[in-house]
C-alpha cells in the first residue's frame, strides 16, 4: 500500500470511529435520561410514602401495634354495642433486661396479682426478642410497672375491643380477636369498613334496638330454662323494611372473652337464627295458603279438602296431629293444622309453582344479610310431588329461622318481600322490595293467622290488646335417616298487630321437653307460643304499637266456614 493510500485509509477509519463515537455519546445521553427517570420515580415514591401519615413509630416492630381502632357499632338509637379503647399491655425484651429475672418477676406478680411469678419469670427469660407478659394491665398497675425502671420491660398501649352489653347480641355482632381482626358476625363481615382508619370515628349503626333485644333474649332464655331446651332463636323484624329489630341465638357466648368449645351445633357461637337450618314444620302452612290463593287454587274460603284418611306415599304416611277425620274447609285446615288438607292443596299448586314462590320468598338460597354465618337451605334431592306435599307443611326443606321471618314479613305486609338487613335504614333508604303476593292474598292469610291465635293452636301467643296472629310449627328432628319422636324443634311465627301488621316475631326452641304445667306437651303451642306472647306484650309499647280493644281483624268470612265456631266479635 502506498503511503498515500494508507493515509486515506487511516482518515477513513478515523472518520468512521469519530462517527461511531458521536453516536455512542448520543446514546449515552439516552441512558442518562433513563437514570434521571429512575431518580424521579424513586423521589416520587419516597414523597408518596413519607408524606402519608406516619405509622405508629414507638412500637412498630411488633405486629399488634399496627392495630388501629375499629369503628364503634351502635344500635338504632345510638347506644354502644361495640367500642374500641386503648388498653395497657406489658411486654418484655429479654435481651435488654438488666436486673435479675426472678426478682423482676416477683415484683411484676406483686403489682398485677393473679399471676404465678414462676410463669412470669419463664416469659422474662425466654429466648426471643419480644413477648407479651400480660396483655391487659390496669392503668394504675401500668404506672407502677413503669416505676420499676427496667429497660427490658415495655409498657405500651394497644386498641382493645369491648362489648359493653356482653352476651346480648353476641352472634350478630360477633367479635374481633386480640389482634383487631374481625372473627365472627358483623365484626368479620364488615371488617374492612370497621378497620378503615378514615372512618374510625364514624359508628356503624345497626337496625337492632337494644331494648327489644333485651326482652327477646330474656323471654327466650327463660322459656329454654323452663323446658330444658338445648338451644333457641328469636327474631323481631320490621315487616315494612326488612330491618331486624332484634335477633338472638341461644345459648350465648361472651364476645369479650369468647370460648371455643363444643363443635358444630354445640359450640355456643353457632348461630341458630341465621346459620342453623331446620325443618320448621307447620309454620310453612301459611306460605302454602298464600301460594294457593295467589295462584288461584283456592278462590273461596268455602273450598276444602277431604282429610278423613291419611295419604300414603310409598312407605310414608301423611297424618294429622289433631285429626278430625272429615272434610275440612280452608280455614279449618289452617286452624287445625291439617297436614292432609295442606298436602292436597299443595298438589293442586304443583312443584313448579311451589318452587317459584319459595324462591321468590328467598327460601331456596342463603339469606342475604350482613353476616358471614348464613345457612344454605337443604333442599330435597328430587323435588317431585311427594316433596311438594311434605314441604307444604314444613318437612323436607330446611331453612333458617331468618328465612321464615323474612317470608312471613312478605306475607303479612301486603305481599312485598324485603331482604332482611341489620343496618338501620334512613327515611330515604326505604327499600322497594319485590312483590310476591297481592294485597288481597295478604289480607286473607292475615285473617287466617289471626284465627289461629284466637281460636286455633296458637292461643297461647295472644298478647292482650296487640292483635297477634301466627302459626305454630312442631317438627321432629331428623336423626339417623328417620325422625326422632322426642327431639322436637318448635317454632311460632307471628306478626302484630294483625289489622295493620308492623312486626314479625319468630321464636324457636331446639329440643324443649314437656313439663307438668304443659301436661307433658312440648309442642309449639305450649313452648314457643308463650314466648311470642310475652315478647309482644313487652316490646309493643317500646315500638309505639298502641294496644286496642276495639280494633281487630274481621274474621267473619273465616268463621263462617268453621264448623261449630261461634262468632266471637
Amino acid at each position, binding site marked *: 500500500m502506498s503511503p498515500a493510500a494508507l493515509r486515506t485509509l487511516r482518515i477513513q477509519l478515523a472518520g468512521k470511529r469519530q462517527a*461511531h463515537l458521536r453516536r455512542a455519546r448520543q446514546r*449515552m445521553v439516552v441512558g442518562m435520561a433513563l*437514570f434521571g427517570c429512575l431518580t424521579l*420515580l424513586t423521589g416520587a415514591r*419516597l414523597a408518596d410514602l413519607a408524606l402519608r401519615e406516619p405509622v405508629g413509630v414507638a412500637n412498630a416492630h411488633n405486629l399488634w401495634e399496627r392495630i388501629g381502632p375499629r369503628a364503634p357499632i351502635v344500635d338504632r338509637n345510638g347506644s354502644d354495642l361495640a367500642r374500641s379503647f386503648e388498653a395497657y399491655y406489658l411486654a418484655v425484651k429479654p435481651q435488654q433486661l438488666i436486673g435479675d429475672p426472678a426478682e423482676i418477676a416477683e415484683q411484676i406478680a406483686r403489682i398485677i396479682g393473679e399471676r404465678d411469678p414462676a410463669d412470669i419469670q419463664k416469659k422474662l427469660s425466654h429466648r426471643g426478642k419480644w413477648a407479651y407478659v400480660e396483655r391487659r394491665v390496669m392503668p394504675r398497675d401500668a404506672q407502677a410497672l413503669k416505676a420499676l425502671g427496667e429497660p427490658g420491660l415495655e409498657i405500651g398501649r394497644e386498641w382493645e375491643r369491648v362489648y359493653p352489653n356482653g352476651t346480648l347480641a353476641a352472634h350478630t355482632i360477633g367479635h374481633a380477636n386480640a389482634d383487631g381482626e374481625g372473627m365472627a358476625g358483623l365484626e368479620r363481615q364488615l371488617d374492612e369498613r370497621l378497620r378503615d382508619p378514615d372512618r374510625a370515628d364514624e359508628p356503624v349503626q345497626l337496625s337492632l334496638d337494644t331494648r327489644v333485644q333485651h326482652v327477646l333474649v330474656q323471654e327466650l332464655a327463660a322459656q329454654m330454662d323452663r323446658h330444658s331446651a338445648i338451644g333457641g332463636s328469636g327474631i323481631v323484624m320490621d315487616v315494612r323494611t326488612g330491618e331486624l329489630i332484634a335477633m338472638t341465638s341461644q345459648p350465648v357466648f361472651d364476645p369479650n372473652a369468647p370460648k371455643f368449645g363444643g363443635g358444630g351445633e354445640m359450640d355456643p357461637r353457632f348461630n341458630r337464627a341465621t346459620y342453623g337450618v331446620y325443618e320448621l314444620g307447620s309454620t310453612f302452612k301459611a306460605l302454602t295458603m298464600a301460594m294457593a290463593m295467589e295462584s288461584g287454587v283456592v278462590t273461596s274460603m268455602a273450598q276444602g279438602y277431604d282429610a278423613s284418611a291419611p295419604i300414603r306415599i310409598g312407605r310414608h304416611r301423611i297424618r294429622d296431629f289433631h285429626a278430625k277425620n272429615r272434610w275440612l274447609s280452608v280455614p279449618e285446615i289452617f286452624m287445625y293444622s291439617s297436614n292432609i288438607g295442606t298436602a292436597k292443596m299443595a298438589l293442586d299448586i304443583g312443584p313448579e309453582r311451589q318452587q317459584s314462590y319459595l324462591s321468590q320468598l328467598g327460601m331456596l338460597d342463603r339469606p342475604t344479610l350482613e353476616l358471614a354465618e348464613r345457612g344454605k337451605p337443604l333442599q330435597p334431592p328430587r323435588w317431585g310431588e311427594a316433596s311438594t306435599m311434605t314441604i307444604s307443611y314444613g318437612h323436607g326443606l330446611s331453612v333458617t329461622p331468618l328465612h321464615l321471618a323474612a317470608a312471613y314479613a312478605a306475607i303479612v305486609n301486603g305481599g312485598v318481600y324485603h331482604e332482611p338487613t341489620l343496618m338501620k335504614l334512613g327515611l330515604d333508604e326505604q327499600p322497594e322490595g319485590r312483590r310476591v303476593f297481592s294485597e288481597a292474598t295478604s289480607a286473607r292469610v292475615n285473617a287466617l293467622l289471626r284465627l289461629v291465635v284466637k281460636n286455633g293452636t296458637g292461643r297461647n301467643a295472644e298478647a292482650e290488646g296487640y292483635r297477634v296472629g301466627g302459626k305454630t310449627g312442631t317438627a321432629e328432628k331428623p336423626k339417623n335417616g328417620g325422625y326422632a319422636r322426642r327431639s322436637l324443634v318448635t317454632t311460632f311465627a307471628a306478626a302484630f298487630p294483625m289489622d295493620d301488621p308492623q312486626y314479625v316475631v319468630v321464636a324457636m326452641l331446639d329440643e324443649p321437653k314437656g313439663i307438668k304445667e304443659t301436661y307433658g306437651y312440648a309442642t309449639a303451642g305450649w313452648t314457643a307460643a308463650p314466648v311470642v306472647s310475652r315478647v309482644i306484650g313487652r316490646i309493643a309499647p317500646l315500638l309505639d304499637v298502641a294496644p286496642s280493644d276495639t280494633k281487630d281483624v274481621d274474621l267473619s268470612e273465616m268463621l263462617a266456614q268453621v264448623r261449630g265456631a261461634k262468632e266471637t266479635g
Partner: protein
Amino acid sequence: MRALRTMFSRGDRTILGRWFWTIDRPLLGMVLLLMGIGLIAVAAASPAASQRLSGANYTYADLYFLKRQVIWVAIGLPVLIAVSMLPKLWTRRLALLGTAGGLAALAALPFLGDEGTNGAVRWIIIGGSQVQPSELLKPMFIVTTAWLLAFRFDDPKVPAIPASGLLLVLIVALLMIQPDLGQTVLVSSIWVAQAFIAGLSATLLAILIAIGAVGILMAYLFVPHVTSRIDRFITGEGDNFQAERSIDAIRSGGLFGTGPGEGQAKFSLPEPHTDYIFAVIGEEFGMIACLFVAILFLAIVVRVITQLFDEDDPFVTVAAAGLAAQIGLQAFINMIVALDLLPSKGMTLPFISHGGSSFLALCIGTGMLLSLTRRSRFLTRAAEPEMRLGAT
C-alpha cells in the same frame, strides 16, 4: 519540607502525584461520600441485624456489623485506589483474567457452593467468609465486553456483538443454575446498554428486549423460587412481609427521620444491613436523606457519562459507561425494591450495604472505572479530528 510542599502540587511527578492529578476527583469524592454514608447507615442497621441474626447458640454484639464494615472499608478502599492506579492496559488484562477466573468459579459453584438462605447456591466459603463469584465477575465481564465491542467502532463488520453475546449467554446460563434472577437481569441489562452504545441497531435492541421479557416470563413459569417471589409481589398475598416492613420503616421515618438510633421499625426488617438498608436510612434519617442518596447515584452516572463526552477511546467509553451503569442500576434496583415497586431481588445498595464480596467487587469495579477515566484534566477534546490527523 520541599517534598511535602510539592506533594499533590501540579509539579509533582511522582506516581502518587500523577495519579492525583489525572484521577476523576469529583467521582472519587462521591464514592467516598457514599462509603461514609454507608458507615453511618450500617451503624444504624447493625443493632437490628445483630438481633435478627443472633441465634440460640450465638449472639452478635450490637455494633458487630459496624465493626465489620470498618474492616471492609479498610480493605476495600486500598484495593480501589490500587486498581485505579493501574495503567489502562493492565486494567484490561486484569478484566480478561478475572472473567476467565470468575467463569471457572461460577461453573464450579454447583459442586463447591454453599446453599444460601433462599434455595440459591451463590456462595463459596473461602477462609471462613462467603465469596459470591458472580459479584466479582460483574466488573470483569463489563470491561471484557467493552474490549470486544470497541473493535466495532473501527470496523462494524467485526462480529463483536455476537462474540460478547456468547459470553453473556454462558454467564446467564451459569447464573440461572443457581438460580439468581436478579444478577441475570442486571448483567444482561448492562450488556444490552453497552451493545447499544457500541451501535446495536434499534431492531436488534427491540428483539433483545423481547427476549429478555420472554426470559423473565420463563423464569417466572419454571423457576419456583422466582414464581413465588413475583406472585407475592403481584397479588400482595402470602408472605409479603418483607416489603411491608420496609414500607413501614420508611413511613415511620417521615420527612426527617426518627433520628439516629431511634428507629424501631428497622428491628422487623429482613436483612436491615444489606438488602433493606435503604429502609433503615429512610426510618432514621428520613425521606430527604433517601432522596439525597438517590441523587448521589444519579450524579455518579451523570459525572461519568459527561466526562466520556471528551473521550476518544471507544474501549474506555464502553467500559466506563458499563461500569457506571452497573453502579447506577444496582443502586436503583435496590432502592426500588425497598420502596416495594419491584419484587425482592437480593441486590445490595452499592458502597452503602454492609460489606462482603459485593462491596469488594464494587471497589475493584470502581477502581477500574477510575483507572480507565484517568487522563490529563487540563486538555479537552480537539474539536475536529482532522486537525490532529493533519499533525501526524
